[in-house]
């Protein structure tokens, strides 16, 4: 069950939580129930991080100061 705040979570926050989750789980001190919860959350975080990493948009735009819109900006691979 993804937490509601996951929509807001930044990549860094998700990575930090994931590292902590793995560390906590690796300690082996948690109860079975807690461990399963940690594992589930860990899997969830892996998904969030991967999604963030792969979010394919790659839009290159420029602010149009005249009307406040953002317009696509053409940039060649080798330079302008």
């Amino acid at each position, binding site marked *: 069950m993804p937490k509601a705040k996951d929509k807001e979570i930044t990549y860094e926050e998700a990575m930090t939580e994931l590292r902590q989750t793995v560390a906590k789980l690796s300690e082996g001190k948690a109860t079975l129930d807690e461990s399963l919860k940690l594992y589930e959350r860990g899997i969830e975080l892996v998904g969030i991080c991967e999604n963030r*990493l792969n*979010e394919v*948009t*790659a839009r290159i735009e420029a602010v149009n100061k005249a009307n406040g819109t953002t317009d696509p*900006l053409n940039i060649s691979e080798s330079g302008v």
Partner: protein
Amino acid sequence: MFDFDSVSRLNGYIKQSLSENPYLAEFSVVGEISQYTVSARDHAYFSIKDDSCVVNCVIFARNRSQLKIKPEIGMKVKIYGGVDYYPQGGKLQIICTNIEDLGAGDLHEQFNKLFKKLQDEGLFASEHKKSIPVLPRRIGVVTSSSGKVISDIVNTIRKRNPHHDVLLYPASVQGVECPPEVISGINYFNREKNVDVIIVARGGGSYEELFCFNDEGIARAVYNSEIPVISAIGHEPDYTIIDYVADIRAATPTAAGEMVIASYEDQKKEIDNLALNLDIAINQFVDLRRKALDVYKNHKALHSPAYYAMEQQAVVKELRTRLEALSGKMVEQTGSDINQMKVRLDALNPENVLKRGYSYVCDKDGNAIESVGSVNRGDNVNIVLSDGTLLSEIKDIAEKHGGIKNA
């Protein structure tokens, strides 16, 4: 003593001598403009001075139109030209070909003054620096829309991670338009909150060209920005005030591009690693618990009737095997003897006890319930019969010596 026979000859000789002196034919000198007037023909007549001396100068319209600065009284300038002597008036003046604003000398002073002021105010404090997000979803860039800088940044970002958005705020990065436009760019992103990090960038240039980034307004806009700001002005050795206020300073615009985006490959690797560690950790955890549980189970089982029954069954089986083996040898013994022994042995078998209509009650884990004291009304218990188990709920409890237990 040489005798000049006329003023004309004297002045003529002075003019000639001066013109023959190579140091006076072409030189530069620094001074402060103390007079400045423009003639009807667009020539400018002015004078420059230092603490004790003054010299007259002229710059003709042709050269004056080429000037990059607008000379004013009080301005510290460096002039280029040569001495000219006007024999008719007996006056000396410098014919100027170029005048430079000596800001540059003063620029350092301005820089130091602003640096000290902002430093004292704490604008460069490291505690104030924000960290740069590892994976900004969108990167704001304040720079010129023409020129190599924006393409350098975009191409660098694309190379490292092709999945990220760039939003350019076009701004002049030179001259008087630079500070207000850069400031409105930073403010625009802070108002719209549509980027995770801002890069303020400009390509290489002279000290004077980059000087517009030594601006108090820009410094304050960067300081007040809620979005982290990376400065990337000029090349490696160039430092301007914005570099000190920015959350991080990149040596070049390309370096800023590299800095702002974590390598896709590196990040992917770390996520995969963490996912693997997560699996290893949970498996280790489960293994450990299972082992502990096995020990516990066996230990507990010693007290459980089911286990006792199993053990007894094994004993009976063993005995039966031995018996059968014996029976072969003991042919002289009667079958009834053997049967009797069998019956007696059978009586030991708890399974047969159950077959006789007895049953035992245990909890869901198979632990025998030996006392009414260990259950409560409403508990679920299992009644084990010879051919199965009755899943039951305690309705009431009657103790041996008296009434109904109050649950």
